[in-house]
């Protein structure tokens, strides 16, 4: 009795199972692995605390994932890293408390580099605080009931039998470079759903990965702005004993309670005053 039919049936079953098994792709970079690679206990920050002088120079970088940077791991398309960091840059460029935002390429951050590496990069870019961005992206592919049609080969190219979900969580932790004090964190998340054929599954997953990162980054920029406001309020109320913020005039936020007052004529009022002056002078000449 020939074994060929059995072999063919086994191969077909294998192919069927291969096409129809749920799959999960995980892309992850960890802030803890980067900053505290060997430490059993986290190193103590400077006991003097952080003294931030406004306006701040902010550096933004993706922390490396695993044993290599994001780009080296080929988890981000060339140019995508800058594009993503630009989302944060655009959101913060008109904030009065930030003078400059530097986008630090992830390739400059060594896996497990710790604070030593962060200091090197911060010195290189001349920034006061670093926002370290870590990413956790999970992509699930679940076969639909009609995915068995992939066995017909034509079905694998025509019928969208894969349900693809991409969940992205981005976390930005902001550190004071001089004192290594943790200042604040903000999350950003997104969910992208779609369907694809078996043949275009990988392409769609790559597209969804990029889209998910972009959406999560936009969410992060929004949350980071809100967290920064809350952080300032905490410092002003004296709830953050380890941090003080000094404004452009050298006034400590902790001392002033965040309340600086000015006596002012607005531009509308000043223009009104000039109009009145012109009118009065004309009236006098008349």
């Amino acid at each position, binding site marked *: 009795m020939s074994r060929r039919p059995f072999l063919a049936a086994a191969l077909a079953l294998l192919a069927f199972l291969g096409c129809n098994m749920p799959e999960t792709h995980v892309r992850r970079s960890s802030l803890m692995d980067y900053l505290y690679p060997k430490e059993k206990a986290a190193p103590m920050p400077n006991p003097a605390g952080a003294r931030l002088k406004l306006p701040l120079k902010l550096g933004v970088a993706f922390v490396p994932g695993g044993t290599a940077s994001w780009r080296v791991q080929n988890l981000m398309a060339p140019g995508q890293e800058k594009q993503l960091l630009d989302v944060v840059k655009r959101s913060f460029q008109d904030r009065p408390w930030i003078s400059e935002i530097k986008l630090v390429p992830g390739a400059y951050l060594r896996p497990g580099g710790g604070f030593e590496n962060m200091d090197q990069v911060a010195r290189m870019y001349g920034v006061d605080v670093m926002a370290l961005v870590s990413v956790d992206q999970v992509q699930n592919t679940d076969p639909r009931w009609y995915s068995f049609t992939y066995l017909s080969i034509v079905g694998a190219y025509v019928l969208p039998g894969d349900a693809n979900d991409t969940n992205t969580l981005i976390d930005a932790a902001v550190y004071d470079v001089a004192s290594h004090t943790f200042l604040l964190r903000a999350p950003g998340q997104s969910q992208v759903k779609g369907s694809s054929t078996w043949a275009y599954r990988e392409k769609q997953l790559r597209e969804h990965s990029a889209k998910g990162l972009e959406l999560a980054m936009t969410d992060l920029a929004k949350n980071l702005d809100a967290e920064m406001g809350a952080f300032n309020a905490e410092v002003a109320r004296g709830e953050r004993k380890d941090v003080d913020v000094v404004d452009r005039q050298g006034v400590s936020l902790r001392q002033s309670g965040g309340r600086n007052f*000015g*006596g002012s*004529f607005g531009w509308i009022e000043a223009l009104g005053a000039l109009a009145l002056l012109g009118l009065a002078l004309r009236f006098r000449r008349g």
Partner: protein
Amino acid sequence: MDTLALTAEALREPWRLWTGHLVHFGWEHALANAVALAVPWILAAPRNRRRLALAMLVLPPLVSLLLLPSLGGGEYRGASGLACALWALAGLRLAGQQGSTPVGLLMLGGLGLKLGAEAAFGGSFLLHPDGWQTLTAAHRWGVLLGLASALPPWPRPHPA
């Protein structure tokens, strides 16, 4: 902390009572206040300029002392309290002079409009991106002191 801005330290560092009205939160803030200060100087009659000069010397510490309770731990910068005082002073004097009454009334009307808008909308109807807020009490005290200093120091005897 800045050594010239008006803060609670002014009780130990009295120069702050004057200098708080000279320092500002930026050139835009300073320029708008300078324009507001220049208008009463230009419009005032020459004989009233001496009174304006005296007011610029005497009124700043009075406004400052009246503002101290509102400051808490914060600081105050800006000449608009003083500008309001000069507008009230010059406006009232001009309103009482023949030929200048409309100008004086216009100045007082403008001042009333500003105080009315601030009372209705708070100081926040004009936003300051540098993170400070308008202290409207400075304008109110300035107007009151300006009106008071426009009055003659003693009643003039009527000619027989």
